């Protein structure tokens, strides 16, 4: 790390995933985001105290989900088991890189699992975008963390409320390693229908995030 070098690095911060401004949600949003805030605190306990009990709970919840994601992506059960273990070990080793003002724990783990899927299942080289230059030394504001985790809870609600036909296509787009054309072939639906349903689903999510 180049801390202390004479050229100060410009720290850019992209706007959050849901646009500018904190969510002014109803009071019950605080309860809904509680689960997510608890996962955040698990991550901090793993990072700060190497807390294996916190890790065990994280593992119990997320490892079977990661394994399921990998199987849906085409891995057999034993490869999925092995890769899911690696993904969870990465959560421990990279706990200091988790930024709760930028992503929920579920999202962070999803991106780790996705990356391993590309490395191991698709066997592709994975281009790494430039990062924004924020470091672990800048602890984000509690208010920013709360706002982001509440937004994640709100997004979770909005997804749960999607009409089944739309939700199913979003699920196939993420779980199944399928392009839109491959989804068309699998479901027998015309490609245009798939694209428009996904567009409708996204419009609805955007509307519910306002």
């Amino acid at each position, binding site marked *: 790390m180049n801390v202390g070098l004479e050229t100060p690095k410009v720290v850019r911060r992209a706007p959050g*995933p849901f646009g500018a401004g904190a969510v002014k949600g109803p009071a019950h949003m605080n309860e809904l985001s509680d689960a997510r805030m608890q996962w955040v605190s698990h991550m901090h306990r793993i990072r700060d105290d190497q807390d294996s009990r916190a890790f065990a709970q994280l593992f119990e919840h997320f490892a079977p989900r990661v394994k399921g994601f990998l199987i849906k992506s085409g891995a057999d059960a034993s490869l999925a088991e092995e890769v*899911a273990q690696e993904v969870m070990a*990465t959560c421990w080793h990279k706990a200091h890189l988790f930024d709760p003002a930028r992503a929920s724990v579920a999202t962070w783990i999803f991106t780790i699992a996705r990356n391993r899927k590309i490395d191991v299942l698709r066997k592709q080289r994975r281009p790494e975008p430039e990062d924004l230059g924020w470091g672990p030394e800048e602890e984000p504001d509690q208010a920013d963390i709360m706002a982001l985790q509440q937004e994640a809870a709100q997004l979770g609600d909005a997804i749960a409320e999607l009409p089944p036909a739309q939700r199913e296509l979003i699920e196939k787009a993420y779980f199944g390693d399928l392009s839109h054309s491959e989804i068309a072939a699998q479901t027998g639906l015309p490609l245009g229908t798939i694209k428009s349903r996904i567009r409708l689903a996204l419009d609805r999510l955007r509307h519910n995030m306002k």
Partner: protein
Amino acid sequence: MEQKIKHHLTDEILMAYAAGTLPEAFNLMVATHISLCDECRSRLYAFEAVGGEMLDQTPSNVVAMDNGSLAATMALIAGGAQDEVTPVRAEGSILPGPLQDYVGGDVGDISWRSVGMGVKQAILPTSSDASARLLYIPAGAAMPDHGHHGTEMTMVLQGAFQDEDDYFARGDVEVANSDLHHTPVADIHEDCICLAVTDAPLRFKGLVPKIAQRFARI
């Protein structure tokens, strides 16, 4: 400050990148664009958040881990993190970091091959389901007229180009589909360098480019 990017990535491409279902060449396009574009980076985070929520709340996807799985994972953890090689990247290059990784250096390290009329290209090593290449178009020169079988995305790295409809400067992405026949022309002020990715071979009109195409492995 970079000039404002006007032509962005589509939802479909960002969502597929978030899901990890794109061919490598398209991943390279997305990684390169979001290295320059905070707006698309932010949209990508939203698509990744959708993936996170789907992971969290799709009960049909939960598959029990094997017996002894946690202990095996703790043993993996005790074995230490795998060493990761952090790529060395030049600052202030016209090539964003991900492209430097694929070129294996900076602009001077690109192995250009002439494809005629002053136009040069360099094919980048990616998986074969799609292709990525850098294009060098002299200022004011036209690309050969070509149509497309599949999807082609072109992003400007240096200079600018314009086609019949629009003007594309650094960071702008043009998306072309099979129904589009176009003739992009590089802006007169500067030679233009682009990243182009496609999931199908380009077809050029006319005999000579066709043969050239075969030799140039377009």
